[in-house]
């Protein structure tokens, strides 16, 4: 083990809010320091990775979806190859494929990961707690309409509900339907209607009245 590490430990002090600390917090800190000391990575790299994930927000996905609403050809390309289409507008979705699925008047899509927590994080950030919860993971595939009701989303009986179970190798992004009353809206304004939850499929996009 190298003893000449010079990184500043103060970078790593837990936030005051984190006290009292737990064993796993200590373990996390220990692993971070060990892999730096062993030269496996640098402290900078760890920090940059945190910054990268902090920069991944639902606004990225919203920008992509808004463009599909105003540009049908772009939408076809997103449905065909999401990574390639996202790159056109400067969004890097990383190595794990994301498949875009479109809500229509006949079909409502919703996404879950029953086995763990796979999520299109490069387009909408880290998943919310409920996405990783036992209740959501268990029930979304069995009684999706009931689960959606818990999110305040009522899907009429004549609309098919399709549930997509994500895996480590394929994640899904829902393209919510464009709300009525937005015919003269530009992409930037439309993007404000597209929420994280609407891209997971548990809610529709916001209506123009909500903004």
């Amino acid at each position, binding site marked *: *083990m190298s003893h000449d590490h010079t990184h500043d*430990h103060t970078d790593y*002090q*837990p*936030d*005051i*809010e*984190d*006290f009292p*600390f*737990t*064993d*796993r*917090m*200590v*373990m*996390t*800190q*220990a*692993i*971070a*320091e*060990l*892999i730096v000391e*062993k030269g*496996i*990575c640098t402290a900078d*790299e*760890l*920090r940059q*990775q*945190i910054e990268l*994930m*902090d920069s991944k927000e639902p606004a990225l996905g919203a920008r992509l979806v808004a463009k599909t609403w105003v540009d049908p050809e772009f939408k076809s390309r997103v449905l065909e190859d999401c990574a390639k289409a996202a790159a056109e507008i400067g969004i890097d979705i990383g*190595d*794990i494929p994301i498949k875009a699925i479109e809500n229509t008047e006949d079909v409502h899509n919703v996404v*879950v990961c*029953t*086995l*763990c*927590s796979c999520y299109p994080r490069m387009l909408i950030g*880290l998943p919310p*707690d*409920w996405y*990783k*919860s*036992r*209740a*959501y*993971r*268990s*029930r*979304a*595939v*069995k009684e999706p309409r009931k*689960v959606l009701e*818990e*999110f305040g989303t009522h899907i009429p009986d004549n609309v098919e509900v399709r549930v997509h*179970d994500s895996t*480590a190798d394929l994640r899904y992004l829902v393209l919510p339907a464009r709300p009525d009353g937005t015919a003269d809206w530009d992409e930037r304004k439309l993007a404000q209607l597209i929420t994280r939850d609407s891209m997971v499929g548990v809610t529709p996009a916001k209506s123009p009245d909500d903004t």
Partner: protein
Amino acid sequence: MTIRRHHDMGGLDAGPVDRSEHDYAMWEKRVDAIVKVLSTPDRKLLSTDELRRGIEELGPGVYDELSYYERWISSATNLLLEKGVITVDELGKKMAEVEARWIKDRETAE
């Protein structure tokens, strides 16, 4: 009949979805960063599948007691031990060192 493993919960009964959320704490973001950095193509010290296997191997009790990123760091640490990237001794010493430092920091802060 197939025996369902603990993590494989799709289709089971469960209570209502608790929609409350918390902002990720710094240590949770650090766990995420450690896993991503160790998984880069030039390192390949961890893979998503290995991490998940490690989480599944925590067993039913631990799986439910730990929070999400607690499961991640437990699995990642076990994998690093298993692969000989770190030793139990190094980990034990480092954890003791970190804990002592934080206790001292806390005393100073008060």
